[in-house]
């Protein structure tokens, strides 16, 4: 007969307290999220509803938001297209060439840059503006996005490559593939969906960046920056509408990333 293991009472109490603590934290986060989303909805939807019904100007109100979203996505697309190959190359360098000191240094740099607050990156770029003296604010704005995105993508990619068991690489070598063939014919097809999900999550994170980009008053419409300016100028309803677009876009990106994840699990 199997004897049931008895835990001391204090241990049970401790477990309960810890569980309650985490449940409380989860509830708090949920309340915060619901309050933000609810507030945005409340501020946005009701005036739009009134204006579209009585003055038929709903589309006029929405249009600047859509335009700002379009600009934001365009900027993010440009930043991603430039950052992606560098991030991919860096991740391959630190995962597939593991021994040299250079690899160690690059890995350390990527780790530090991935964790560094965005404002510090922007300050560096701001200082760079004074040194070079020729770059426009727009270029610096996009460069900041790239530098913000690049280490996060590189670290994400590297983690994904680390996740591929070594024996698949060995098999590829054993059937006579070169390192390049191993990467492009074996490693990439195996990780493509995960890499895509990682790009989406990186983009979603960059979409929320505000503070570092405030340094560059470039006149570019970037949704989070616009929201900040609108709020400071007291245009709360417009800011709320922009926030709704931002929330909706992030939600879509996360849903797509989650769908990709599910496909990977399948």
């Amino acid at each position: 007969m199997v004897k049931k293991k008895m835990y001391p009472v204090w241990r049970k109490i401790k477990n309960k307290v810890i569980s309650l603590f985490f449940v409380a934290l989860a509830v708090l986060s949920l309340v915060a999220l619901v309050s933000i989303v609810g507030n945005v909805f409340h501020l946005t939807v009701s005036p739009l509803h009134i204006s579209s019904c009585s003055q038929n100007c709903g589309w006029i109100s929405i249009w600047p938001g859509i335009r700002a979203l379009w600009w934001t996505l365009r900027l993010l697309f440009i930043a991603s297209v430039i950052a992606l190959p560098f991030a991919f190359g860096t991740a391959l360098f630190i995962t597939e060439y593991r021994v040299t000191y250079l690899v160690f240094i690059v890995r350390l740099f990527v780790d530090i840059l991935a964790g560094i607050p965005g404002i510090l990156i922007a300050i560096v770029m701001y200082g760079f503006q004074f040194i070079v003296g020729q770059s426009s604010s727009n270029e610096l704005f996009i460069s900041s996005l790239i530098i913000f995105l690049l280490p996060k993508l590189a670290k994400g990619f590297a983690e994904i490559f680390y996740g591929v068991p070594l024996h698949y690489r060995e098999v590829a070598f054993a059937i006579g593939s070169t390192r390049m063939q191993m990467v492009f014919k074996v490693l990439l097809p195996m990780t493509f969906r995960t890499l895509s999900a990682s790009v989406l999550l990186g983009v979603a994170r960059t979409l929320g960046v505000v503070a570092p980009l405030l340094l560059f008053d470039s006149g570019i419409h970037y949704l989070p920056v616009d929201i900040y300016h609108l709020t400071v100028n007291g245009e709360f309803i417009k800011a709320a509408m922009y926030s709704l677009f931002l929330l909706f876009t992030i939600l879509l990106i996360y849903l797509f990333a989650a769908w990709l994840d599910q496909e990977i699990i399948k």
Partner: protein
Amino acid sequence: MGKALSAIELSASFGNHQVLHCVSLHMQPNYVTAIIGPPGSGKSTFIRCLNRLHETVPRATMTGRVMLGDQDVYQMDAISARQKIGMVFAQPNPFPTMSIFDNVAIGLRLRDGKRQIHLSDEVERSLTIANLWSEVKDRLQESSGKLTVGQQQRLCMARALALQPAVLLLDEPASVLDPFSTLRVEELIDQLKERYTIVIVTHNLQQAARVADRTAFFLAGEMIEQGTTTDLFTTPCDKRTEDYVTGRFG
């Protein structure tokens, strides 16, 4: 036809840690040579040196020579050496994102690129040799993950055989298989030795006795003894071999 493979004064290290000490072993053509020994005795490292896979490991070094027929494997291009000396690993590891067909064809595609014309024929030939064709011929485009573990291991053998190697290295090929699948793999090894020189690493002494014509006993990175399987198991020359095959240690 298989070719003779010879290791001459082979030593191998990982960083400062030497795991193989001056091992010389001749593996005759169309024979099955078993490498036996307790864990950590350098068996796997030895066969990984034979097809130059050892050098893909960071900080791994080796000295000595490996001869395939009259060619020095370490004077050849590493890629072509690995294509001539195929290898199957302990864990069945077909590429999960590829179909059964693609898993067998991948080696040929990597070697020949788009020049490969008779790919389907080659895949069928390899699967037939690996005794898998009748089981998968109607589902070649299915994912390899849908096969049983035993079938996956035979698929890995077919993948290695597709490149028509002269030598086939098997690193504990049945260690994760059930007894029935193990039997199928052993039968396959018996058939394959007519075409290939086979080197099998195993910790299963009964398996070595069943499949191997010749056996070498490794201990702590040294080759203690080698000979015909019957002689090594019944009348070993070295006390350590006798202790190992009689189960006193390991």
